[in-house]
């Protein structure tokens, strides 16, 4: 009996794993113990026991439920489905007939089965291409507008975007670490004395500093497409260096890419992102997307003095939305809200679109991004931010590269 349980759990765990849930062997073993403890009398208990031992986040619930539903009805069925999901078998011969399988699990199974990705073919090519670029080519590439680039130039630009740094000025955190100045740390002082009893040199510690967390929210609607791709590569490069960076994209709905962009290989990361995003190059619903971000994510991501980059042209398709209200909320969550707008490259840019006018009063900074140089400049803009006092922020606003009209500066007093 005991090994039958284990067999079943192993099967079930493999299904979950294929569906993309990270379930290790340790968890499978624990699930077996849990089932022994609760027994098999009540289905709800079995379910709860498996949930407690196999899940680690609430989002996994949906896949788990579908898989459990199917498994409980007929473990054999799921087994057969799993066979089908094996990459070697999938797609060959006629579909074996399987009566009414739950669509969600099937999708999960198929999505979870590691698709045989082609070897990343482009990296070599890109290196060669990069080598071919002379100094003046690169110079031109840095100044060229993403919209105006040829396909090859654009490809090279994507590679370069991933290498650009974004040095945020570090903020003080509460954690202490050893330092030559600051508070005396008695414990370390005493340890030092016991090593070297004849001297009394106080060991000190002071508050650590580190860059604040960064959240990047990218508009991937039709009008933004080329810029959005560059930004995804930029975000991927940043995420590889600092996994605390979170990236979300929106067109008509919000998609979270933070985990996806942690893949080391850019091609794998971008492909995974493309699989998640269903609204590439469609319309934009900025207000709705911001509302969703505010409700679901702002409180989770914008903690610890987080900075936020909002990349959009501000051209909202749903007119008359409550964009202003949502932007105001957002600006209260983010320690610093920076709006990057490719339209700013036009010298005569005037905030006429209603979306732009709604957003503008609530951002701390408003900067152009349309070529690699402006991405570089972004780093400088952040690095030169002189501290974080309200005064400094006000000063930074005044010195931002293209200040919008003074009337647009007022921020809600409660900040």
């Amino acid at each position, binding site marked *: 009996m005991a090994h039958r349980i284990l067999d079943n759990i192993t099967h079930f765990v493999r299904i979950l794993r294929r569906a993309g849930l*990270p379930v*290790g062997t*340790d*968890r499978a073993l*624990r699930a077996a*113990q*849990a089932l022994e*403890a*609760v027994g098999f009398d*009540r289905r*709800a*208990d079995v*379910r*709860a*026991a498996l*949930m*407690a*031992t196999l*899940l*680690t*986040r*609430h989002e996994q*619930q949906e896949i788990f439920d579908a898989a459990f539903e199917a498994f409980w009805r007929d473990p054999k069925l799921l087994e057969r489905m799993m066979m089908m999901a094996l990459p070697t078998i999938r797609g060959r011969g006629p579909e074996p007939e399987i009566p009414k399988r739950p669509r969600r699990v099937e999708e999960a199974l198929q999505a979870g089965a590691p698709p045989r990705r082609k070897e990343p073919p482009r990296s070599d090519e890109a290196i060669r291409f990069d080598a071919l670029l002379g100094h003046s080519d690169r110079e031109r590439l840095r100044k060229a507008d993403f919209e105006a680039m040829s396909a090859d130039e654009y490809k090279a630009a994507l590679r370069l975007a991933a290498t650009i740094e974004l040095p945020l000025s570090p903020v003080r*955190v*509460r*954690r*202490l670490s050893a330092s030559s100045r600051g508070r005396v740390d*008695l*414990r370390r002082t*005493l*340890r030092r004395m*016991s090593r070297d*009893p004849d001297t009394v040199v106080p060991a000190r510690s002071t508050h650590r500093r580190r860059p604040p967390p960064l959240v990047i929210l990218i508009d991937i609607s039709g009008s933004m497409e080329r810029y959005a791709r560059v930004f995804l590569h930029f975000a991927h490069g940043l995420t590889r260096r600092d996994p605390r960076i979170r990236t979300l994209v929106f067109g008509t709905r919000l998609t979270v890419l933070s985990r996806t962009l942690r893949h080391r290989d850019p091609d794998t990361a971008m492909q995974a992102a493309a699989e998640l995003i269903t609204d590439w190059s469609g319309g934009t619903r900025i207000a709705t997307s911001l509302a969703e971000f*505010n*409700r679901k994510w702002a*409180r*989770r*991501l914008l*903690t*610890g003095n987080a900075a936020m980059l909002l990349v959009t042209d501000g051209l909202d398709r749903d007119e008359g939305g409550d964009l202003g*209200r949502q932007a105001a*909320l957002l600006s209260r969550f983010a320690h610093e809200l920076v709006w990057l707008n490719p339209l700013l490259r036009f010298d005569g840019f005037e905030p006429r679109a209603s979306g732009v006018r709604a957003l503008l009063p609530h951002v701390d900074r408003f900067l152009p991004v349309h070529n690699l140089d402006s991405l570089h400049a972004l780093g400088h803009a952040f690095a030169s931010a002189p501290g974080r006092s309200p005064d400094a922020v006000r000063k930074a606003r005044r010195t931002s590269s293209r200040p919008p009209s003074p009337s647009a500066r007022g921020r809600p007093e409660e900040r």
Partner: protein
Amino acid sequence: MAADDPIRSVDDASTRLAAHGYLAGRELATAVFLAARLHRPLFLEGEAGVGKTELAKALALVLDTELLRLQCYEGLDVAQSAYEWNVARQMLEIRLAEASGKAAEPGFAATLYRREMLIERPLLRSLTAPRPPVLLIDEIDRADEPFEAFLLEVLSDYQISIPEFGPIRAQEPPLVILTSNRTREIHDALKRRCLYAWVDYPDAARELEIVRLRAPGANERLAREVVEFVQRTRTMDLFKLPGVAETIDWTNALIALDAMALDPDTVSDTIGVLLKYQEDVERMRAGDLGAMLDELRALSPSLPQ
């Protein structure tokens, strides 16, 4: 897990929790039973005010043991969470030893790091307490990553390694409850060591029972209307949905105002107890509260009579 009276089954967990005023859903009761049986920490996630912390308090009562609570915050370190050397006493001993000429003896330094020199903070205390306590690590999402990393050893081996002293291991592991409001994602390494349970808002029937239990002053009509109202509120597109804690607070507030039933004015006056964002309050007041209340009463209520 009190040695004398452990939790025996899922049913046992839910009846005993209920006896101490905590009505747990079946899923949560199962998770609690498993945490106790398998000696695994229980990681509770859920929105604010759904009763995660209360569960730990109730469990301490059920097991008739001490509740050790560690409130997390950024920068929380070993000295505040686990142990601290009693440096003042160590200094004193050095002075005494110097006076008697023992300070120069070999091995004197080692005697400064004796067990009695340790000041126990909640984590260490939970391992050394004579009777295994309930250890509540509250709002772990407020602590920073370094503290999470420090917790790993405690949670997997019920052990704390002190550099100057060596490892201290629990004779009998405490029952550990971790809670998180998901203001940030907790590292998988920590979650891997725990059992996981998502604590959801209760359904109307259970919420009514909770209100009856926790706000006994409310008459039946008020309790029902409050629960119906709150349940309805949770389906609205609000910024922060009210938790059970808010339901209880609101009921008690209404009792204090001698309300026998809900009416638009009272709701409007006391809505701040239920909703904590100005946007949400405005939204609620902008809607027609009277119509909403009438609707609630007219519709066949989700609660069994």
